[in-house]
Structures are given as C-alpha cells and as structure tokens.
C-alpha cells in the first residue's frame, strides 16, 4: 500500500495535450475517482501512472519511489482494463496465476492465493473455464481477481463497469466499494459517470480538457463546486445556471434576472457587492427550487409557468420557464403539475451559487 503523487505531469500526443500539468496526491489506502467527460485525459493520466505512456514532463511517485522512468512491471501496480484484457487461451485460474508465475512464486502459494481470491469474488466454480465461456459480469470479476491476487501497492481501474448492464453495474459498484474498503489498497478509478464517482470515491478528481478542475470529497464537490464546469458536471439533472445583474442599494444586495429579483444570501453580500452593477452567473440546484402547483404560497415566491413535466417515479422533474431560459426543479412525485399552468417557486437562497462570468470560478 502506498500513496501516489502526480507532480506537474503533462502528457502530449503530437499536437494534443492530453494531460496538462496534473498535480494530485492520492493518500495511502484511498479510493480516488478520476472523473470527467470523454476525451478529457483520464485514461491517459492512468496509463502514465501505469507506465504504459511515457510522461512528457513531470514526475510520478508511488510510495516513496519516483517511478517516472521505471517500466510498468516494476511499479507494483495492477490494472483492470475496460475490456478486461483477459488472456483468451488461458483458463480463469491461469489468468489469475499468470502474474504470480512470472514472479516465480511457489506453486502452493499461487494456488492458495488464487483460490482465496476466487472465493472472495465468488468465482471459485469458474476456475477451469476460458474467458469466452464467461458472462460479462464474470469476466469483470476475473479481471478484478487477477489484479487482487498480485497484492499490488495500487489498483488502477479504467471504467471497469462500463461494459456491464445497468443493474449489474449498480450491484458491482457496491461490491467493489466493500472490497476496496476491506483490502485497503490505494485505488485510482477512472469513470465518466458522475454517479459512479459520487458513490464510490473517498475523494473525486474532476478533469476537463486535460486540466484538473477540483479535487475534493463528494459532498464538497456537490455543495461547493470550485467552478462552473464542476458545478454543471456533478449532479443530475445539472445545476440551473442563469445570468443575473448585481444591484446594490438601500442596504441590500440583490440579483436581478429579467423580472425576477432575488435577495443575496446574507453571508455573501460582501462578496457579491464587489460585482455591483455587473453580471454574475447564478447557479441553483433543481432540489433547491421548491415548487408547488398553482398560486399558493407567499408573495415573495416566484410564479413561473410549467413547460414540461417529467415523472421519474421517485421524483418529478418540472421544467419551468425562468426569467432567462429554462429552470428545472425537483418536485414531490405525488404532486400533480400540468404544463401551461403557473407554479409557485421558492428559491432556497442560502443554497445559491454564483460564478464569475469571465473566469467561471465560483464566488460562493
């Protein structure tokens, strides 16, 4: 077990900067999720750590060793590939034993380890099968088992669940979390799925276009996104964003968007006042818009027309025509909304976010 450090790592492919000055510290035993949209450089970052790609600049440290120029086999890591990369002509047993054999481990020890891990993963009955005789979920387990038997310092996983169907994915997600907590091995897990990221990681590193955007716990990422990208990437449906003008006067700071005026959160007045008479981007999560059908509610509630209603079972998404563009609100699934009617909307002012329109950095 070991910590992992990316120290100003940059990886260029002729013309493309896949990873741009990545500095990141993964703690010993931590489950770190690397998340971001497709093509943002997650896989490349992972492959640099594995030694499958030579970094263009910067250093990679595993444990207390600088491994930047050390070949993959000497980095003491195990990788689970998206397509599993099981050796097709070897049985499950041989697949799991391969790495141990290469290390000249005694036969009995190999046997003991393979069987123990197979038991742990519930694949002990599949040991004599070839990969093509296995289902997707079983292959995934074998790939995992092959990584675990080696008892490496670090697990690297590149979208290991993306080839499973939705139900199995959720189930395996849970098992993987339990397994990692139990083994306590430092794990770096790549996914483009923000739900996976939120549920699995101790901490999450959000990447975009090769640049690390924010590294934080799931809660902090959700409640205090560092910039507009993280705010809209994390959370489903995405945070509502609209421009508003900052108006000061009469001892109050207000946000004005169209014919809607919102009070500034009390503790953010000072921060917002710096933007007096300028525009900021206001963000509000769908669950922080409390909607009720009709005209009920207090005067200070907004009255917005309902555009679309999406009942999802556990909740209902109500699309409202906001002052600037559409606002999505999460509503109680048992309350009925009809498109075209007005809804009364209370904004949880204390949960407002605001972003600088130029830098897109969060003001709060």
């Amino acid at each position, binding site marked *: 077990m070991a910590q992992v450090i990316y120290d100003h790592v940059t990886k260029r492919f002729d013309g493309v900067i896949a990873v741009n000055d990545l500095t990141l510290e993964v703690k010993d035993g931590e489950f770190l999720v690397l998340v971001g949209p497709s093509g943002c450089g997650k896989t490349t970052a992972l492959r640099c750590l594995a030694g499958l790609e030579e970094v263009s600049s910067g250093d990679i440290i595993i444990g207390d060793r600088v491994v930047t120029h050390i070949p993959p086999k000497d980095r003491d890591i195990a*990788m689970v590939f998206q397509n599993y*990369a099981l050796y097709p002509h070897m049985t499950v047993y041989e697949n799991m034993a*391969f790495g141990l054999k290469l290390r000249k481990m005694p036969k009995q020890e190999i046997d003991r380890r393979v069987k123990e891990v197979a038991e742990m993963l519930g694949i002990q009955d599949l040991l004599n099968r070839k990969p093509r005789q296995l289902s997707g979920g079983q292959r995934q387990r074998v790939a995992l088992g092959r990584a675990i038997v080696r008892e490496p310092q670090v697990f690297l996983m590149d979208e290991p669940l993306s080839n499973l169907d939705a139900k199995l994915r959720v189930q395996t997600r849970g098992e993987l979390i339990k397994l990692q907590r139990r083994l306590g091995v430092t794990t770096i897990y790549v996914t483009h799925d923000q739900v996976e990221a939120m549920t699995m990681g101790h901490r999450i590193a959000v990447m975009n276009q090769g640049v690390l955007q924010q590294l934080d716990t799931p809660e902090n990422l959700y409640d205090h996104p560092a910039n507009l990208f993280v705010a809209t990437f994390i959370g489903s449906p995405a945070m509502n964003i609209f421009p508003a003008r900052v108006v000061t006067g009469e001892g109050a700071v207000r946000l004005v968007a169209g014919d809607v005026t919102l009070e500034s959160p009390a503790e953010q007045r000072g921060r917002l006042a710096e933007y007096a008479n300028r525009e900021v981007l206001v963000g509000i999560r769908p669950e922080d818009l409390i909607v009720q059908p009709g005209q009920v509610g207090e005067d200070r509630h907004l009255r917005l027309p309902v555009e679309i209603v999406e009942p999802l079972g556990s909740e209902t998404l109500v699309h409202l025509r906001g002052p600037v563009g559409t606002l999505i609100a999460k509503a109680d699934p048992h309350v009925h909304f009809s498109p075209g009617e007005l809804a009364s909307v209370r904004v949880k002012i204390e949960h407002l976010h605001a972003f600088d329109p130029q830098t897109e950095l969060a003001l709060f």
Partner: protein
Amino acid sequence: MTTAPAGTVRQVMSFRLRDRVRHWLDSEPVLAYLFMSPGWLILLLFMSYPFFLGIWISLTDRTVGLPSGEFVGLRNYTELFRDRTFHLTVINTFIYGFVTVPFKLFLGLLLALLLNQAFPMRNVLRAALLLPWIVPTALSSLAWLMLYDAVLSPFSWLLKNWGLIESNIAFLGTRTNAIISLCIANIWRGTPFFAVAILAGLQAVPQELHEAAAIEGANRVQRFFAVTLPVIKGIVVITTLFSIIWTFADFQLVYVLTKGGPANSTHIFGTYAWQIGIGGAGKLGIGAAISLYMFPVLAVLSAILLRYVRSQEA
C-alpha cells in the same frame, strides 16, 4: 353451406404447391446444397475428371502420340520401385518439402514481427515484402538462374572479390549444391507468404493484452509466448501445412533452375513425372504413376489441415 367455385380450389392447390416449394427452399440444408452445386460441378469437371483419368492412365502403358494404351495393372507402380532416379526423386521431394519449411517459418515470423513494429515507410516495406510471392515463379526463377550461373553468378563474383573463394561456385553443378540452391530459392519465394499470414495474425493481437502482460511483469519474450503465440498459433499451423503441400507439388522452380539435373539427381515428383510422361520418353502411364505417388502424402497432409481447421472452428 356453400361450395367453393372450381377456380378457387385450383388457386388453393397451387398456393399449397408454391408454399411447399418455398418451405422446401427455406430449409437450410437444401439451400446450402443448391448454392454449392456450381462449385461442385466445376470441381467435378476440372479436378475429379483429370484425377480419375490420371489414375486410369497410370494403369496403362499409354504413350504420347498413340491414341490409347493397354491395361497393365500396377506394373508402372512396381517398376518405379526399381528406378534409382525415382528413389532420388522421393528423397529430394521430402528434403525440398520439409527442410525448407522451418526456415520459411522462422524467417517469416521474424519478418512479421519486424514489420509489426512502428517505423517510417512501414507500409511501403510491407508491400515490397510480398514481391517474391506475387512475381510469377517462372519469372523469378529465371532471375535465380542468373544468380546461380556457373560463370556470371554475382554471388561468386562478390565472394571472389572479397577473397573468400578462389574460383566460381558450381551452384547447380553438383547434386548437393543444386539442392541447397533450390532450397534457398524456395525459401526466398515462400517466406513472404508466412510473413504476410503471420503479420495479419499479429495485428489481431489486442494491444491491451500486451499491456496487461507487461504490467504483470512479462518481458518481450514472455509476452510473445503468453500473448502473441497463442493468437497466431492457428495461422502458423495452417500456413505451414499449406506451404508443405505447395512445396511438395512444386514444379516451376526446379524445372527452370535444374530441369532435374545434374544427371537426374534433383528431380521432385512434378518434374520427374513431366520428364518421363511428356518431356523425354513420353511414357504417359509411368508419368501418371509418378505423380500419383504424391497423392498419399498430400492426402494425409490435407486431412491433417482440414482436421485442424475444423478443430479451430469448434
């Protein structure tokens, strides 16, 4: 109750017939045979007929120019037992067919592994590699004939220039030399086939497997045996068997380079059959018998090949 008019009944019946034909055509075995029949016909016409005619001729004393011969039973076959040239021919064919193959396989594998690496002009080189195999053998053999020339051989010239030999090498002058020369030309011609087939196989090896193995601690050699070889094994076996069969049944290279000489010591089945049957004596019966002696070997090899291909399909 109403009775249907006669026309409707007829219609219904013809419907049934059409349905039946359609149903019959829907059945996979029927359709399969139907589609195979043109191929079968061509095979019957151009392969089976000459084959059985050959067997018949080998049982007669037929000669070129005469309309037909007498039935002589197995005499042609037994006579060959006593023919020293035929003994040599058998030995030569086996040397030619089996000794060259390991070289072709090894060189082909090496070339394929090299050409599978990334380097500039790779595609040009890959295309060039195929040349020996695309150029008609009759033509490339002529080039070899020049290279092996007793007087003008550039090989001899080079070696003499470097002071390694005193006088020209008689590449085709003695049996041993001629057979080695033939084998070298054969290896030159056959290697590209191995290289291309294996290269295709190498490209089917997923890069991820190599990476997984590299992370697990396998070096290049270990990766070759653990990841590459199992994937290309089938291709190697099939290519090897094909190559043996083709070399066994070769004619052109030997015919152009030595015509079986010196002193009939480098014949293989094809050239000796031609010489006895058509070229010199015109003894069609014996010629046919010689080529039919190839049959058991080729049949066994083909059977192995087919079995192997089937086992891979399963």
